[in-house]
């Protein structure tokens, strides 16, 4: 016993204990430090963004590119109050922003896996088309056109038409900006700036393109709906003026052309 105690009381043991304490302390410090870093990367550490950017040694984990020009106009569009049977958001507020939100929702598509262009086009038709654009002929023609698009997409992705898309392949349309053409209480027409990305397979490079779509909505039966008459009126009005050119958000021209960026609120 005494021999054991003597062994514990040696100078070497004290040194070892101090070293152990130092290691534990430093590890803890490093862990907490690392935790802060990770939080900032994931965007969760909003509590101390100024601290991390003001700290001398640690480089900021994200910063906008040098040529990034902050869009002058931002809009956080309202969401639909409910989701219909086809998975589309409906029930938008009776405001101009609500109308734009409906147009943006109608233009947001995701073609991936089993979900084909036909599915997405018919979803847009059944969820958002107003009464003045509905007929069985229209639905049929939309389906036929979408089938042609599907054939093209399948060919590009290297699978037979009718099959599911290869894993990792997708074709997505995301609305990133808008410019209102004309707005009244019950009718809103707008240009929509969308980013289309296509990836033909797991290892393929993603391709991207921008589109500009003119669409118009009309307040109908307690919700905003796509309207043929309103769109035709918007087309006639758009013919008399130059359409805004396409530019990505962050580009100086994005502001020059009069686009408003859409902020995805959580």
């Amino acid at each position: 016993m005494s021999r054991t105690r003597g062994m514990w009381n040696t100078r070497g043991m004290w040194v070892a204990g101090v070293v152990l304490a130092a290691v534990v302390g430093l590890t803890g410090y490093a862990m907490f430090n690392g935790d802060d870093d990770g939080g900032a990367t994931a965007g969760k550490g909003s509590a101390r963004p100024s601290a991390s950017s003001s700290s001398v040694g640690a480089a900021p984990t994200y910063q906008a590119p040098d040529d990034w020009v902050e869009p002058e106009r931002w809009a956080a569009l309202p969401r639909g109050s409910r989701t219909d049977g086809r998975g589309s958001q409906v029930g938008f507020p009776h405001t101009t922003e609500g109308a734009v939100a409906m147009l943006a929702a109608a233009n947001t598509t995701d073609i991936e896996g089993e979900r084909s262009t036909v599915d997405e086009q018919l979803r847009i038709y059944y969820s958002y088309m107003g009464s003045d654009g509905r007929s069985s002929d229209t639905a049929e023609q939309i389906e036929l056109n979408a089938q042609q698009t599907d054939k093209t997409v399948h060919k590009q992705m290297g699978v037979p038409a009718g099959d599911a898309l290869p894993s990792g392949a997708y074709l997505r349309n995301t609305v990133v900006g808008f410019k209102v053409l004309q707005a009244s209480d019950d009718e809103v027409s707008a240009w929509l700036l969308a980013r289309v990305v296509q990836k033909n397979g797991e290892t393929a490079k993603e391709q991207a393109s921008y589109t500009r779509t003119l669409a118009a909505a009309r307040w109908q039966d307690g919700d905003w709906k796509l309207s043929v008459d309103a769109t035709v009126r918007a087309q006639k009005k758009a013919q008399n003026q130059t359409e805004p050119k396409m530019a990505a958000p962050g580009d100086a021209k994005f502001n020059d052309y009069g686009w408003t960026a859409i902020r995805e609120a959580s």
Partner: protein
Amino acid sequence: MRRLAAVLLALVAVLGLSVAAPQPAAADGVIGNGVEVACKVNAGPVLGTAIEIAGKATGYDLCDKIGDATEKKVKEAWNGVWNSVLGDVINSAADVSKWTIKKVLTVALLGPSLDLEATGLFGRHATLAGMMTWLGLVIATFGAMWQIGKMAVTGQSKHIGRAMAGWLESTILSAVGVGLIAVLVAAGDALTAGLVDATFDGGDAAYKRIVAVMVPEGVSNPVTMLCIVAVLLLVGFIQMVLVFLRQSAIPIQCLLLPVAGGGRVGGDATRQWAPRLITSICVVISYKPILAVIICTGFAEFGHAKTLAEWLRGCATLVLAVLAPGPLTRIFAPFGEAVGAGLAAGGVGGAFTAAAGYIAGRAKDGDDGDSGSSRLTTPVEHAQYVEQSMGRQGGSGGQDGEAGRDAQSQAARNEAGRVPTQAGTGETAGAGTAGAGAAGAGASSGAAAAGAGIAIQVLDGVNNTLQGASGQIGSGGNRQ
């Protein structure tokens, strides 16, 4: 042949590159139509269709994608070219290349080879074949006279023996040669038809698919299309000439058989006619099945996608088919020489043995040579075996410019021949140095050579040189 291959490959490389050059610009360069269907997956087509069905179309595009303006301008420029005279030229060139490919494939793969009987050259009243037989007889007679003279000068009875054997061979070649060729041609046809049927489910589908791949529809860039048809016209035309050459070569070769047979009677130079002709006949007959193998392999895997890579692969296949006769010649040259050596060694029977030995030797190429020779019991058989195998190796020896050495080597052989027991090995050494051209030397040179014989042999050597040179020009098919 190698030079031709180099030229063709260089052409394909150059033209292929210029085909490839406009491609990236259209694919993802400045024009940048990254996502082709970008305007077809949003609400644009839904609204557009509804407006159209409602009859309210204004002609204003609901959706534009970035780069559309540039693309429209480029398309306009291309359309301008298409509508100009150059467009007509390109279109008609495309038509011609389609026709060429179709014709080549029809003749090369689908149609039957030439029917020898139908040519009327070999029937009862065939004047041309009769003339050729007559010519063969004349040559044979002259050859026999030459051999008799040689015998008289040298005092060696082997010369007359050689003439007699040659006469017999000539008769057999004339009698069964044409029939044998007809049978082989028919066999080649059957092989080709079977291959095409198995690969493409019928020949009609075959050339439709190949034409669809090689002359793609809807190439909007006129320069690309021009390059494509230029390459195809060149390759297709050469291919077509080759295929038709094969068709017309068969009757000519059949007509030449009696002449080549007659040559067997004469001296060393004329004795080489038959092996060379046999080589070229083998090449011509096997060209069609080989072509079918190449084309079936090259085009079997094609789907419906029309990419540049596939086009290049198809083009390479066609070029390969053009180049096929070169290697074929090389494959059959030693075979023909083996047959020739066999003819020299033991008449027609020997020729068949030699051919069989050649094939057997090929089959067990990796085996130990001793296992083959151990079965041979007598020295004569052993000598024949050695000679056959030397004849086979002679193919790589090269004959060019060696005909002049023939007289010396003949003298060397005769020196060796003075020791009768070593006749076999002496022959081998001689044949080894002189190449295949010396393979026709007499096998039974047991008798001692007379001094006067050297003079004749020098003459023979001069004759050989002349014949060798003319053979190079006329290309018996043995050397390229």
